């Protein structure tokens, strides 16, 4: 069980690093926090689990999403008309 969680954590962390959409990365970070909270609970550290779930999956996700909302999409590979079309689309 612990090993499954650890492998999932590594996969999600790599996805957070390589994904091109910041919002997807933030949601993956939130999932990492949730998995870590479950892991802490399995390892008999419920205090840390509560902190991780509340801070990592709750408050920091809200703050990250609000920070991303203040940005706009830009990528050198995007064509200009595509960039204008997707401007502010998903955030």
């Amino acid at each position, binding site marked *: 069980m612990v090993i499954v969680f650890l492998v999932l954590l590594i996969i999600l962390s790599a996805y957070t690093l390589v994904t091109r959409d910041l919002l997807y990365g933030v949601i993956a970070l939130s999932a990492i926090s949730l998995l870590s909270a479950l892991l802490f609970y399995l390892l008999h550290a419920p*205090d840390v689990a509560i902190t991780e779930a509340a801070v990592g999956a709750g*408050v920091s996700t809200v703050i990250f999403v609000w920070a991303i909302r203040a*940005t706009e999409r830009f990528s050198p590979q995007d064509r200009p008309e595509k960039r204008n079309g997707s401007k502010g689309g998903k955030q």
Partner: protein
Amino acid sequence: MRSKITGLFLFQVFLCLVTITLVLIPLFWTDIPWPTIARDHMENFGMAASGARNMVSAIYLGYRVFDTLGETIVLLVAVSGTIGIIAHGGDVLAKGFGDPSRNESLYQEKTTLVKKQRTALLEVVTGKLGPVVLVFGFYVMLFGHLSPGGGFQGGVVVASGIVFLALGGRADGSTRLTEAGVLAKLESISFLLLILASLSGVVFGGGFFANTLAQAGMPEVGFIVLLNAIIGLKVGAGIGFMCIAMLGRAE
């Protein structure tokens, strides 16, 4: 260009792995056993000395309470810095950097988008869930000496409840907990209470952070409950204030 960036990324990953290996290998290869004196002492005498069944909260509010004071000050500085940045650069943060004319239209577009996204579902769910989350936060805060949790954890859950209320509450003033001024006063008063509670030991001849409630005849654990409540209020008000300021309602 692209292969260069990929190569740099792989080199960074390699560097991280090497660092982790260098740190972890001595831990696993050592023949010296783990120190067990502190652990055995806590197991045998900790509960009798502090009265708290949750040993973690007995440690961070009894044996290592100076660490908690330091963490509280760190949080205070962090919240102050965030509020300072938002107060002086909030317009830039909200509109984005670069070309001002384009960003102005983008800002308007996003503002209308956000207003459109405030559906009845969001308002009903967060508005109804907020009080329940608040009650759970206060439970975690006040029962930190018995069950997992404590001031910091309960405070963060209370902050989540405050954010829920701010997201879901309509502007009819049914609660004043989401007003930035109230939260700021709450945080300042809790920090003052924390300083007073820590200084109260000096008045009764016990020293900084001495357990005055135990000297007055109350149970030993009372001081931990008091500190948990104060720290929870401070953390909840501080982080809630920060989130509400980022939501743009600090006026």
